[in-house]
């Protein structure tokens, strides 16, 4: 019990999500013998990495009280352009990848500029970007997939480091970086502050426009990373890649306990959220559940996760008696 409490304290909000992940894994391993094999677990990591990486960026955005609907389109456009540079133009892979990532980041920064300078609501700005980037992706590829990517590029999606898939390694690295940015730098501290109370942040002398723009840029960059992995794994860049991706990414962040009203949330939660979605999809596939039912079940999991979070928060506040004092404070 002591240990449990310690874990709970150190994890805070992620405790619920982590319990869920463990619980789901136990259920899946009881339901099907194929689940708990090393190969399958590595497979889950590989599959989860796409959502997890973009979710790292999305966590920042949601903590600032925003939302980014364009992650799937940015994923597609950056991967198609990178593929085009490699295949049609024959450019060096690393230059093409670097440019692809820069394009992703720039698209995100553009979101940030619209949101902070015009200013547009994040939902609208990124909804527009979602259409524009997706459309450009179709225009560029004329709707046809780009095949024949160089072998060394495919390593990004299919490569192994020892027994571990390369995308899983990349995912861990990105989460380490994101953890650092969120907890140890101004970017993170100001994201929490402006998501919690933008007016107070501005009056404390924080350049909120700058930090919002950085955060959307980061999300664009991470979406492009996911785009590279996906294209490399499929050995094709397509204009339809990442359709509906934004909802999976937002779901992962929300399952991980980050509040859509801004100001609260932790990066580890989003990783766990993405893994939960990966475990469920994988387990249901192994159990031969149709993809139609998978959608239903994933939807229910989102509802359950947020419900548990809301209920837990209410009960803990009532126990401390702090909720009533909070209400009393509001009234005074």
């Amino acid at each position: 019990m002591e240990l449990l409490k310690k874990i709970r304290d150190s994890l805070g909000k992620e405790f619920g999500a982590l319990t869920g992940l463990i619980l789901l894994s136990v259920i899946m391993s009881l339901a099907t013998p194929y689940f708990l094999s090393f190969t399958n677990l590595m497979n889950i990591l590989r599959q989860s990495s796409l959502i997890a990486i973009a979710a790292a960026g999305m966590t920042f955005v949601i903590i600032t009280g925003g939302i980014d609907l364009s992650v799937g389109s940015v994923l597609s456009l950056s991967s198609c352009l990178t593929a085009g540079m490699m295949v049609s133009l024959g450019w060096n892979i690393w230059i093409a990848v670097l440019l692809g990532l820069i394009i992703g980041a720039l698209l995100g920064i553009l979101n940030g500029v619209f949101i902070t300078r015009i200013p547009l609501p994040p939902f609208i700005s990124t909804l527009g970007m979602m259409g524009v980037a997706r459309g450009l992706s179709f225009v560029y590829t004329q709707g046809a997939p780009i095949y024949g990517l160089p072998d060394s590029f495919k390593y990004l999606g299919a490569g192994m480091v020892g027994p571990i898939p390369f995308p899983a390694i990349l995912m861990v690295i990105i989460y380490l970086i994101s953890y650092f940015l969120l907890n140890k730098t101004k970017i993170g501290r100001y994201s929490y502050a402006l998501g919690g109370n933008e007016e107070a942040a501005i009056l404390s002398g924080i350049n909120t426009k700058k930090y919002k723009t950085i955060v959307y840029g980061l999300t664009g960059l991470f979406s492009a990373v996911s785009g590279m992995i996906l294209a490399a794994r499929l050995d094709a860049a397509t204009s339809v890649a990442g359709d509906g991706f934004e909802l999976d990414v937002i779901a992962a962040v929300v399952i991980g306990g980050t509040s859509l009203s801004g100001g609260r949330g932790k990066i580890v939660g989003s990783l766990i959220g993405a893994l939960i979605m990966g475990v469920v999809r994988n387990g249901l596939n192994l159990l031969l559940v149709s993809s139609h039912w998978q959608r239903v079940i994933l939807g229910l999991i989102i509802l359950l996760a947020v419900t548990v979070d809301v209920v837990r928060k209410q009960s803990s506040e009532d126990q401390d008696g702090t909720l009533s004092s909070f209400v009393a404070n509001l009234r005074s």
Partner: protein
Amino acid sequence: MQNNILELSSITKKFPGVLALDKVNFKLREGEVHALVGENGAGKSTLIKVISGVHKRDGGDIKYKGQNINIKGPKHSRNLGISVIYQEFNLVPYLSIAENIFLGRENMKGKAVIDKKDMYQKSKKILEDLGIHIDPKTNIADLGVAMQQMVEIAKAISMDSDIIIMDEPTAALGDNEIEELFKTIENLKEKGISIIYISHRLKELWEVADRVTVFRDGRYIATHPISTTDKDMLIKEMVGRELKEQFPPRNVEIGEEILKVENLNSNDFLKDISFSLRKGEILGFAGLVGSGRTEIMRCIFGADKRDTGEIKINNKKKNIQNPQDAIEAGIGFITEDRKKQGLVLVRSVKENISLTDLSQVMDGIILKDNKDKKLAREYIDKLNIKTPGEEQEVRYLSGGNQQKVVLAKWLIKNAKILIFDEPTRGIDVGAKKEVYSLMNELAGQGVGIIMISSELPEILGMSDRVLVMNHGEIAGKLDIEEANQENILNLATKE
């Protein structure tokens, strides 16, 4: 003698740490306009909220139309025939006048269809009775403030109200509109409707009210027929308390000029604001709510745009365009509304304190948690902030302790000019005293302090000089020796 429609006796209302109403009596006659006056915090709003069912009384009796009643909530009070018109209107901007008047009480044709024709006709009749000729299909958003107020009044009439309470109805109106309003009020009186009229503009009471009741510090002071009293007498009754020894003495050498503001104009409201502030000085800004005090400070701090105006700090012109520039120039701003503007409520005490200057807790680009904690603990001790620890979210702290967190935010910055906007609003007496001592200490260190306050005793007890604002202009500058409650209130309320 007319009958009393409403009789309140010995009404008591307590809030944590405050006795907002202390055995208050109030009698309203049928068909009279009864003005309610008093300083901020005198208990007027609380009384209104008790009558309208927003607050439950803790003691006393309410007699309405001769019967003892227990008002259960706002809806109950409305059904009884009591309507309140607040300063902030309760109207839906993109619905028509008629739809607003009958919102929630629509006449139906059958079960599901709203009888619009009937609604428009009824609305038109009510409006015409009030002497207003306007198409009830007009959207609220297309109306001016005065007309919106008329819609609120029409709404109250449509509910067959016997009592209409008006909270500062003239605050947002121009002279012509005020005249129109007074005519309407006269009209309502003829219909036998009783009106409770709250206003800070004492002068207008002689035009509109029949009787006036004065409140002070949550207590009933007196009721007069309006013709038997005058403005000076009312002001005396409103402020008549002794200045208590709650303001710690200060012995500070006032130094050279640190801030000079010249010809500040903004937004067609602030006109020709010029003043200066010296090192170690506390400059009090008095005036009514909405007289432009906070607006001036927001302009100086770069939070709002100014049209013209020069700001000099230590005799050097500063081009302040945003709060970052202001902070850079050494200004700190303790805002009026700590929850909306001062604090990130869902984050910890620690994070809130270091927010104005993260560089103090960083090594290069890395935030150092131990430095952050150390800084927070230092100020928790120094300001005696009562919190379980530096990781506690500030929303769980009491008002006074939240205010201290806001102060800490600016103390770590070592600001040379500190603006305190209503620094003791909503905090208890003990915390107030601590805030005052801190202000004195800061003044002693040579910080120049601007203090906006709506509490006159605070202005008189703390300031070295007093500046009185009235309708966006400086109505007067007084040395503390010549300032008293009467001349400040006179300057603040003169038309």
